[in-house]
């Protein structure tokens, strides 16, 4: 007999339908699994057989052929265990074909018949909704992850037995109650809060501008000046993720199997800090299956590169295109996938090899040529994509004394950031961009009106520093964000004056 059960596969994070077909025929008993399965799918035979036996279910023996259609697309992972087991039960007449029709199934089986977390369940829930499935049956460990998806019945089960009893009408699994996304959005208090950072007023101001306008940032300073600590405070001042953003981020992490079992949708923006030994493939994505890289895991959040010149120059340069475009196309011999990569880049570096170039007291022992060489390890095109550059000096002792005024908390900074983002959202509605960092030169003239004094100042600065158009537009973008933080529609002289401070040090010369 023949049976068909619907499941889904993932192309990157995008789901596509997979039909699990089972055919029982006479002849020599055997079990064949076809349809481009990977090793984990192939092993599903043993898990399914054992799970069925330990659930008190015995599909009749015979010649079993399992096909995962479309047969030309490679299938990954263990998530087809449940649909295969159910198709075998239907094929051997132990379950009505009508009982599984119209539903979508996903889940890995343990040998005892219990269901284990399936990667990519959130994509599956959206798939079930889009295709108008009558229900998605998935492991209980995925229940919280999909709990915000409404308008499709989602049934979470703990075991194969539970699913079979439900389908046979012997018992009932209640659909999950959709949870509003806002209810998930309570911030875990982070160890990193700006109120713990003494002094460093300029650096904190720049972090705020970065968060408000979505700009990329480079911090340059001696060891121990708190660059890493400052960067780690970023998630706490970033605006809340919208539901759509949270969906995208959670789907990426879920599809890659990076969500803990029982984890809910992600509500905090990701902060990824890959070590400087990271390869190009681990940063932008790659490997045999073209899996996502750090820049994709940091989508809608922060990619923090500490000790920037220590990264392989080749690896850094591969970041240029994804930083510019907001997506990355990873191509390998057997796979081609497109992943989103809209991140804020935060980078930190020492000014020279010993770390003290430019500090007072002449502590730097580097020869001038060595300083230049060190700084040249960052390629110009990458630097060009960084709007904000700030020098983070050693902390002043008077800022550490208890008499110094208490620093502002991250929560307060976030409120200003949120307001500035809201202004941008309104201004750019329908234009395809969301933040000032995404402004290109054609939009700047249209969307960034400037006072006459601001214009004069900018022209004077451009002449004084011999500026080319690129740094010029960079300053306008930053000035736009500073004006947004101040709640001004018109870019004023003081906004331009501040923005000029954060231009590239190398462009001074």
């Amino acid at each position, binding site marked *: 007999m023949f049976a068909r059960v619907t499941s889904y596969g993932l192309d990157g994070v995008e789901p596509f339908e997979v039909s699990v077909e089972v055919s029982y025929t006479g*002849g020599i*008993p055997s079990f064949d699994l076809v349809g481009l399965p990977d090793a984990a799918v192939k092993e599903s035979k043993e898990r399914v057989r054992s799970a069925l036996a330990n659930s008190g279910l015995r599909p009749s*023996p015979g010649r079993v052929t399992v096909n995962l259609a479309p047969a030309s697309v490679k299938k990954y992972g263990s998530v087809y265990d449940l649909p295969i087991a159910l198709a075998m039960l239907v094929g051997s007449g132990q379950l009505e074909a009508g009982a599984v029709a119209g539903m979508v199934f996903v889940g890995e089986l343990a040998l005892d018949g219990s269901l284990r977390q399936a990667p990519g369940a959130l994509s599956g829930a959206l798939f079930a909704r889009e295709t108008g499935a009558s229900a998605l049956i998935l492991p209980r460990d995925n229940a919280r992850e999909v709990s915000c998806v409404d308008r499709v019945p989602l049934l979470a089960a703990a075991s194969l037995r539970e699913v079979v009893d439900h389908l046979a009408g012997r018992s009932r699994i209640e659909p999950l109650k959709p949870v509003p996304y806002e209810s998930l959005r309570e911030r875990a208090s982070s160890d990193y809060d700006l109120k713990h950072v003494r002094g460093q007023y300029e650096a904190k101001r720049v972090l705020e501008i970065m968060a408000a306008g979505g700009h990329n940032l480079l911090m340059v300073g001696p060891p121990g000046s708190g660059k890493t600590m400052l960067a780690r405070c970023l998630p706490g001042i970033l605006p809340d993720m919208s539901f759509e953003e949270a969906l995208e981020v959670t789907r990426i992490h879920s599809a890659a199997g990076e969500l803990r079992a029982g984890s809910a949708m992600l509500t905090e923006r990701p902060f990824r800090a890959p070590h400087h030994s990271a390869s190009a493939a681990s940063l932008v994505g790659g490997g045999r299956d073209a899996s996502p890289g750090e820049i994709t895991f940091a989508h809608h959040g922060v990619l923090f590169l500490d000790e920037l010149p220590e990264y392989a120059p080749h690896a850094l340069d591969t970041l240029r295109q994804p930083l510019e475009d907001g997506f990355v196309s990873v191509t390998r011999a057997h796979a081609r996938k497109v992943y989103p990569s809209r991140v804020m880049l935060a980078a930190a570096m020492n000014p020279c090899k010993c770390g003290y170039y430019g500090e007072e007291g002449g502590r730097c022992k580097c020869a001038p040529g060595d300083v230049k060489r060190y700084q040249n390890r960052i390629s110009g095109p990458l630097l060009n994509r960084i709007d904000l550059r700030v020098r983070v000096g050693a902390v002043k002792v008077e800022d550490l004394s208890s008499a110094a005024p208490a620093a502002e908390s991250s929560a307060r900074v976030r409120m200003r950031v949120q307001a500035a983002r809201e202004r941008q959202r309104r201004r750019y509605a329908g234009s395809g961009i969301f933040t000032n960092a995404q402004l290109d030169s054609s939009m700047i003239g249209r969307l960034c009106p400037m006072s006459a004094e601001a214009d004069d100042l900018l022209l004077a600065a451009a002449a004084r520093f011999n500026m080319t158009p690129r740094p010029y537009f960079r300053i306008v973008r930053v000035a736009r964000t500073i004006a947004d933080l101040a709640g001004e529609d018109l870019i004023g002289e003081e906004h331009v004056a501040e923005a000029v401070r954060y231009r590239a040090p190398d462009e001074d010369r």
Partner: protein
Amino acid sequence: MMDKAARRNAREFGRRAEEQTAAWLETRGYRILERNYRTRVSEADIVALSGGTLAFIEVKARSGSAYGLPCEAVTPRKQAKVAHAAQSWLYAHDMLDAPVRFDVIEVYPGRIRHIRNAFEAPAAA
């Protein structure tokens, strides 16, 4: 290694166990279609028909437990041989689509254990 006499003895012991098994199966309604079916490279001890299903039965006898369970002696290699014999038998009798089963019967002194659906043909590829 066994000497010649011991090997003859072992063969005799196995043959008697197969006879005993065949008789036992017949009392349980099995129709024995063939005993010791051989091809050039493989063999099946008993081919029997029961309730519309063809059973290819491998008989393993033990006089003691010194060498582990008899069924453990039906290695994947042996399973493949029985499956091969079955294929050839089905072809010869033009019954390639008939429902088939592979059983193992363990024979102990004074006791018989029948394992239905003991194994299936190794997956192609």
